[in-house]
């Protein structure tokens, strides 16, 4: 008897929702078995409760809240990009300023007052080739930085 109950146990839900039919033998067993008939009764009760569960409607302002969060998320992402870009620009300016300062220092002209005559003399004495290569590097950095700034302003203008 117990063995029959264990055999039927995995089928209880299918029997309760009507997707499986009891054989004549099984039906006779269920009719005479308190355990199996109670299991089926409970499974049917659960089936009925599941079918009757309330469907909670979303709050009235749900769509509005989602849209507000979408805007907020986009704003956060843009702010992160802006911050990254500003940091990159600051780093670029720092590099160029350092390179310029290095160039002046290498020419021995790093002083508060700029003596134009000294620059001319330095050009004569230190060799224009060496100076020109460094000036080219600094100038190229400045051009790249200007282009990056230009792209940024263009992107900002396009977004607005």
């Amino acid at each position, binding site marked *: 008897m117990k063995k029959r109950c264990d055999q039927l*146990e*995995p089928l*209880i*839900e*299918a029997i*309760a*929702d009507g*997707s499986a039919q009891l054989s004549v033998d099984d039906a006779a067993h269920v009719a005479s078995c*308190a*355990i199996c008939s*109670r*299991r089926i*009764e*409970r*499974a049917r*009760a*659960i*089936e*009925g*409760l*599941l*079918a009757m*569960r309330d*469907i*909670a*409607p*979303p*709050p009235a302002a*749900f*769509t509005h*809240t*989602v*849209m507000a*969060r*979408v805007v907020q*998320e986009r704003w956060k992402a843009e702010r992160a990009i802006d911050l990254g870009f500003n940091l990159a620009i600051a780093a670029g300016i720092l590099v160029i300023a350092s390179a310029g300062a290095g160039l002046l220092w290498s020419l021995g002209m790093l002083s508060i007052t700029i003596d134009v005559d000294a620059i001319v003399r330095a050009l004569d004495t230190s060799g224009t080739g060496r100076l020109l290569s460094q000036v080219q590097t600094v100038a190229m950095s400045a051009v790249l930085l200007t282009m990056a700034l230009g792209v940024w302003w263009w992107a900002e203008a396009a977004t607005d």
Partner: protein
Amino acid sequence: MRATPEHELVERCRQGDETAFRELVDQYKGLVFALIARSIANRARAEELAQDVFLKVHKGLPYFRGEAKLSTWLYRIVINVLSQERPELATASLDDRDDEDRPRVQPVADDRAFGDLVMKDRLEKAIEQLPVQYQVLINGHYLKGMRYEDLAEALNMPMGTVKTHLHRAKRRLRQLLETEYR
């Protein structure tokens, strides 16, 4: 008013049309909220999680290739969100052997509790204890308009397996009600 066809709506959303996304939220909020609210008892938290689902949809839309139905993709996101919320249930085994390890309680004579409001409350609590996939199966199956095919696609299971799992989920529910929530 007729709803916009799904592929057209998705395409407009992909192009950054906010009105289309608003329409998409309006169209699917009932389904998403019902699925989540049936698993998460705290209504405020359920609302927050349902919003998270749509934020993920918004982020993922550029990568959505339209091979699956939008609703299928939504179910998957719901499963992921619920799994993150209840990690202990996300990895819970769906294997039937677990049920066999569970101590069996012989039914008692007093079954009056079945069918009343207390039973309803117990049922909700028992559902919360199910693995996330079982919760979505139960919650989804008993929502109007949910088909076995949709559930099978969302859960990446053959249809026969969906039916088997649904029966196992209900069996586990019955066993939970017989033991922990008596």
